[in-house]
């Protein structure tokens, strides 16, 4: 919006930090203003608005990774606006028919029967939803990340449809967009964009779920070198039964730098009509029952060598890139679904009366709604902040942010759907109402697209890897105190001076935000500074072994997620308040409430990180777990047993 661009222009903020600069700068200002009068008055030229002007992409350092070093990229605090008025208008015009279509889908029937009817698929194809991120040259809608996230809010109303669409475009054909060459794109994208062909992503096998590098499907080069022959089977493949196009990951023999042959994963584009591709029966699932999930068997499938995606042996990287690129939309899809759910639940709470009062007058119910609203606000803010980073940054490094969005949103959706069901009480438990279906559908969010546990390790390791590069020398010296006594003493003194419990707020984040979010920004700043110190402590404590200390990594990841969430909500609410959106005061309240809660969580986690084994139960947990595994289960004697 126009007014927002003016408000974030350099002439308005940050005034405080500029005024506090040295005197020499001030005199320089005065002399320059005198010089201004000597200049000629320029003729006013209207700014050229041409739709063809390319948006220049920004070069910014990675936000999440730099949090581990205490460097906060304050550009984030001006919540980025990606779409100009025209594109936003076009997007809104597309949103209305899609919403209408989704209201007409009979989700209950899809859930009961376990399949999506052909009319629904045809409707989705007619709306162009099968090719949202495919460039317009190939017949798709050419959406960027933000527009895709917006539509994900609507498709989430029916989880089975959303997952089928996501399996097709977020992962099934993403490989082509990321790593495909021109011939492959021209050959396959047009048919995939219209929905004539459906895509599927085949990585998981019975023996390799989270451990993607251990796939056992094998592809061997034929004798004449023109074909690869693939053998193997993949399980739990969404769209497996209806797809015509598969992105399959298989082990191939590659000559490595030393000249030896070794097994590396390669990505292949496999068409069903190559022959040898069969699928099993659809799996009977707890949730997303309409989405087709089945085993896919590859038996001597001949794959032409032009269908290798990217380089031979580079498949693992491609798989990770594909998975990373689709994650952030879970934030907006979760938020879209929850907004609808909260609306229905609020209507119920307002009209249902017990003990002479409507439910809305009871504090426990009010608490539930407020917490849900804060969670949804954070989810939305994080998702759109990540999508803005993906759209506006040159070579965006947002794997960590996308993972953070996914972890937060999946758990947020699960908890909030559970709360909505709870507010409805017995009615929520009945199949007549959609709440139990949404709850069952939400459970998979914590598992697919990278289980939350793996993603937490990913978040912390990405950050620690980045931090480790910069802190290597310091950590080495800290871990060898006898060899570097002076350094250790100096750094301990520095640390004490910085006062880990209450560090001096040097980042001045509140200068970049509206004063109404000042308290929240100060909480954020305190935790960012403490987090940096905690990361240093952790690396110094564990050294290279830090990758195995998963309980500490989990704490680091939780703090990082909360910090990112706090930055997103504070930035978005400040923008809303500045440009005067409706209910902007309410947004500020949501942001503040969320930051206070996140601050409390971070307090505990950071104390545990600083304190190490003295403050945590980690050793006890390991001992208890070991006893349980030795006894293959719960092994305390029954309370009624007598000796």
């Amino acid at each position: 919006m126009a007014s927002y661009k003016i408000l974030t222009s350099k002439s308005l903020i940050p005034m405080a930090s500029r005024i506090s600069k040295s005197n020499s700068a001030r005199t320089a200002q005065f002399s320059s203003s005198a010089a201004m009068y000597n200049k000629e008055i320029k003729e006013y030229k209207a700014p050229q608005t041409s739709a063809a002007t390319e948006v220049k992409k920004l070069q910014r350092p990675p936000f999440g990774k730099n949090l581990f070093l205490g460097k906060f990229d304050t550009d984030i605090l001006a919540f980025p606006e990606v779409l100009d008025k025209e594109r936003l208008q076009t997007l809104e015009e597309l949103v209305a028919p899609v919403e209408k279509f989704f209201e007409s889908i009979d989700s209950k029937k899809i859930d009961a029967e376990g399949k999506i009817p052909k009319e629904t698929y045809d409707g989705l194809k007619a709306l162009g939803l099968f090719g949202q991120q495919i460039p317009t040259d190939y017949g798709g809608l050419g959406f960027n990340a933000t527009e895709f996230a917006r539509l994900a809010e609507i498709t989430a109303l029916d989880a089975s449809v959303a997952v089928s669409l996501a399996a097709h475009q977020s992962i099934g054909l993403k490989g082509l967009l990321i790593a495909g060459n021109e011939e492959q794109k021209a050959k396959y994208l047009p048919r995939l964009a219209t929905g004539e062909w459906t895509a599927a992503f085949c990585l998981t096998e019975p023996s390799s779920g989270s451990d993607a590098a251990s796939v056992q499907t094998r592809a061997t080069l034929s004798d004449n070198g023109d074909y690869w022959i693939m053998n193997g089977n993949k399980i739990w493949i969404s769209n497996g039964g209806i797809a015509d196009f598969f992105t399959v990951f298989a082990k191939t023999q590659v000559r490595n730098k030393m000249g030896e042959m070794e097994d590396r994963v390669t990505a292949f584009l496999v068409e069903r009509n190559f022959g040898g591709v069969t699928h099993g029966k659809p799996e009977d699932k707890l949730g997303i029952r309409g989405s087709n999930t089945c085993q896919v068997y590859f038996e001597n499938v001949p794959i032409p060598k032009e269908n290798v995606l990217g380089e031979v042996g580079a498949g693992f990287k491609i798989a990770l890139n594909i998975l990373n690129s689709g994650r952030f939309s879970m934030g907006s899809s979760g938020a879209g679904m929850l907004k609808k759910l909260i609306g229905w639940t609020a209507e119920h709470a307002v009209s249902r009366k017990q003990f002479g009062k409507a439910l809305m007058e009871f504090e426990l119910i009010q608490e539930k709604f407020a917490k849900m609203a804060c969670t949804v606000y954070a989810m939305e803010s994080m998702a759109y902040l990540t999508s803005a980073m993906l759209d506006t940054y040159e070579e965006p490094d947002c794997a960590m942010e996308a993972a953070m969005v996914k972890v937060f949103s999946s758990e947020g959706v699960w908890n909030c759907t559970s709360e909505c069901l709870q507010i409805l009480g017995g009615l929520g438990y009945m199949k007549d109402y959609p709440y139990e279906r949404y709850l069952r559908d939400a459970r998979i969010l914590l598992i697919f697209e990278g289980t939350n546990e793996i993603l937490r390790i990913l978040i912390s390791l990405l950050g620690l890897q980045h931090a480790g590069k910069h802190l290597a020398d310091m950590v080495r010296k800290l871990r060898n105190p006898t060899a570097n006594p002076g350094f250790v003493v100096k750094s301990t003194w520095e640390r004490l001076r910085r006062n880990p419990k209450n560090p001096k707020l040097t980042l001045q984040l509140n200068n970049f935000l509206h004063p109404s979010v000042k308290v929240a920004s100060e909480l954020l700043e305190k935790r960012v500074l403490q987090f940096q110190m905690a990361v240093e402590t952790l690396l110094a404590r564990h050294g290279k072994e830090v990758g195995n200390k998963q309980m500490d990594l989990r704490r680091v990841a939780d703090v990082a997620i909360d910090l990112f969430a706090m930055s997103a909500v504070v930035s978005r609410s400040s923008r809303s308040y500045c440009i005067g959106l409706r209910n902007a005061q309410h947004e500020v309240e949501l942001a503040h409430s969320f930051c206070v809660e996140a601050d409390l969580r971070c307090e505990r986690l950071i104390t545990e990180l600083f304190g190490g084994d003295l403050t945590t139960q980690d050793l006890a947990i390991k001992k208890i777990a070991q006893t349980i595994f030795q006894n293959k289960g719960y092994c305390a004697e029954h309370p009624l047993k007598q000796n």
Partner: protein
Amino acid sequence: MEDNGVCPDAETDAMVLNIFGRHGFPTKKLRRMTYWMPKFKNLSPWALPEKIPTSNLEVAKLAVQRMGSVDPATEMEIFQTSELRDAIDDTWIVSGQSATQRELLAKLQEKKTVFVEGAFPIWLRRTSINYFILRSDPEPLSEEDQKQRAQFDYDDVSQLRSWILGQENLTRKDIIIEPSVHEQEDGTILAVAVTGTCSKDSLLSWIRFLEKKNPNLANLSILFATNSPLGEVIPAIESSVPVNTVKKITDTSDL
């Protein structure tokens, strides 16, 4: 610009900046307008669309929604008088009533009077429409209740009674029941309606429609009042000539 409610945009800002410079009153004023005007535009909790619709029915719906917003449980219903057998007028009726108001109606004793009062005007920006209310006389707390409320002992914790513990017959000694927002000092508002024709006949049809969900209405005596303790009244007409014209101020733009 502010007299006509025009919000500044980026192009205007660039123009003013180039012409008047960064450190001058015009740019400062424009920047302040850029900050405050969008805020004021969105400040009203009762959002109205940019152009108020010209159709009476749409304006009526907006009006009843706005009046019913005091109680989140208000339900707005649209009736057509043609559904009733003895209706003379053929018009729409937009009626708003919440579950709380229905309970209050149901609790009224037999032969009590309720008044249909109107028409009061309500303004939506520069458009006004007339509405009617169903009101019953206020019920102040009885002497005994007032005495008990005054003597409510906030310090006594020896007998904590609650519905959760299964204790029934909670008296005013145990809890204070707050009156609902509909129970005012000058009367209890039981329903609100806007009709296409402001005629007595349409009001009669409205009462008949209300009786479907408020069976107690049949036991009460309903008076069509020509004046009201609530304020100035535009009296309802007898005939069925549609008179509920939407009055508009048209000298300046429709803000």
